[in-house]
């Protein structure tokens, strides 16, 4: 419990921790903002109805050792800025798994050193996203419960398609494309991470992603960077079109209730749609596929209603503690300026650069001019 105070940003989350029990039954692992207290089980009415799972044979809320999920915190209107974290969070929301979510901006705070990471009730730490989802499934939070065998096979196939075609482009868009990286990605990470990590960690992450992309695509024999890029984006556009065709006019990929495939697809699409990218070639194509956009906004509004409304939390959180410290900071600033001035004036007086003249009291005007002349001579 104390851990959530340290890691979850902003006072609101800490205050919300006592509402954990309330929210566990409602199927959200994330206590909402402080405006929640009066509100009864919030509108997970639609979410619960639409939600396939929680065939949870276990006893009521908060009975067991809770599963803890560490993930990147939110930004750009999304609950998390990282693809894997977003996928896992979405799956958890779909299934109503009672996760205690720690949104952190420092990967070293996670038990495995990487994000996302799931700490199970037995203290085991899992950090590969699809293994996290598999674990949740084993704990009976299964969004694929109602899928037929063939739909399960389709899930695997489409997941492979996403990984082969969309993932390289996502990495390229956010981490390799210079404009995007400098103006969006690095900016967010550098602002969100604590000192002194913000100096070197984004750069290191970029190098890791670039290497990964190189290994993923290097085998296609790139003649040069631009051609490889064009090819990648071409395949990604095709992939998006395929997804759009497969989704058709349904609400989710397999009917009316979300499944794990929806979590994966949502992760990719949400990042591509929501982040304000200066050079968003794929974004333009994606915006043209209306059913995918509607799908994204539908899931966001249904399962992450307050995350979208809050705007970019990481920008708020630095402001939060700042406003608290503001009076002290201002006072410190004023004091330091005064101290500086005093030091300068004192030095000037002592070293004779500036000297204070003691003027003698006034005599008769006639003699004054003489004495003034004398004083002038003295000086």
């Amino acid at each position: 419990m104390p851990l959530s105070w340290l890691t979850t940003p902003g006072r609101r989350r800490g205050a919300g921790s006592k509402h954990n029990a309330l929210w566990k039954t409602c199927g959200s692992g994330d206590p909402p903002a402080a405006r929640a207290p009066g509100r009864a089980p919030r509108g997970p009415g639609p979410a619960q109805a639409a939600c396939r799972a929680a065939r949870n044979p276990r006893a009521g809320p908060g009975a067991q050792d809770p599963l803890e999920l560490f993930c990147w915190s939110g930004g750009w209107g999304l609950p998390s800025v990282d693809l894997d974290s977003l996928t896992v969070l979405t799956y958890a929301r779909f299934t109503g798994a009672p996760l205690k979510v720690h949104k952190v901006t420092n990967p070293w705070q996670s038990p495995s050193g990487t994000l996302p990471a799931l700490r199970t009730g037995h203290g085991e730490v899992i950090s590969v996203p699809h293994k996290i989802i598999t674990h949740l499934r084993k704990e009976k939070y299964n969004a694929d419960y109602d899928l037929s065998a063939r739909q399960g096979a389709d899930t695997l196939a489409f997941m492979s398609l996403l990984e082969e075609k969309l993932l390289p482009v996502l990495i390229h868009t956010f981490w390799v494309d210079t404009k995007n990286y400098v103006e969006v990605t690095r900016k967010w990470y550098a602002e969100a991470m604590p000192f002194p990590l913000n100096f070197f960690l984004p750069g290191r992450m970029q190098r890791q992603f670039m290497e990964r992309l190189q290994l993923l695509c290097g085998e296609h024999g790139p003649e040069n960077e631009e051609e490889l890029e064009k090819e990648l984006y071409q395949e990604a556009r095709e992939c998006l079109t395929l997804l759009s065709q497969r989704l058709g006019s349904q609400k989710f990929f397999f009917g009316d209730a979300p499944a794990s495939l929806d979590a994966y697809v949502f992760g990719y699409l949400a990042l591509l749609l929501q982040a304000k990218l200066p050079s968003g070639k794929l974004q333009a194509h994606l915006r043209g596929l209306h059913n995918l956009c509607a799908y994204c906004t539908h899931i966001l509004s249904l399962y992450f209603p307050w995350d979208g409304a809050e705007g970019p939390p990481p920008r708020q959180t630095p402001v939060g503690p700042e406003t608290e410290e503001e009076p002290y900071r201002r006072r410190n600033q004023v004091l330091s300026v005064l101290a500086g001035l005093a030091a300068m004036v004192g030095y000037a007086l002592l070293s004779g650069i500036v000297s204070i003249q003691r003027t003698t009291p006034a005599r008769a005007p006639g003699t004054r001019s003489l004495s003034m002349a004398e004083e002038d001579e003295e000086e």
Partner: protein
Amino acid sequence: MSLVAEAFVSQIAAAEPWPENATLYQQLKGEQILLSDNAASLAVQAFLQMCNLPIKVVCRANAEYMSPSGKVPFIHVGNQVVSELGPIVQFVKAKGHSLSDGLDEVQKAEMKAYMELVNNMLLTAELYLQWCDETTVGEITHARYGSPYPWPLNHILAYQKQWEVKRKMKAIGWGNKTLDQVLEDVDQCCQALSQRLGTQPYFFNKQPTELDALVFGHLYTILTTQLTNDELSEKVKNYSNLLAFCRRIEQHYFEDRGKGSSSIRSS
């Protein structure tokens, strides 16, 4: 292939009909070729047979280096060289032969997705087994891969390739997997394929498509290649409809044609 080159090739390709002397290059069948390359080559052969296009298989020790993308197999048609199943399918389509024209959009999407599934899981598992499993590497792969070359080149090339493959495995997250987990993944993949196939003769009912060719290539190779142990082929044998599927394609497209130039019984 770059986009411009692709468009250019398609244009040229469309102009000429399929010649009689089209050849497919792969490594030496008896001594050199490895599981994954054999699977890829068989997939292309199956695809071309399904399209009714004649092809002659030629084995060369340096096929990997001749290929424009570094992967086998590649085909030499007219004065063009195209490698790997994806580009070959497009090339053949430009010439006017296609197996997937009858599919609607959703089915095409599914077909592409399943092809990626096979590439993602089966092919990667084959590569893992060949290059990251120490017993197989020691007993089979090193010897086979370097067999056409004199000492010490055979060792150097084999180690170099192994290092490359291991790096790639790490990049995609397979570096820390154990053999059991990999076999588990193969089982999942076969289960997915089996469920998708169901009781139909081919994946999209009556007519075979490139997906059928690809699946046949991989499964048949797994079933008929002798490795240090039989675990991989056992996983496939669990699914009877996949076995029937392989048998059906073999009978239909390889035995009946009577083109004895390449027997598809792997070593």
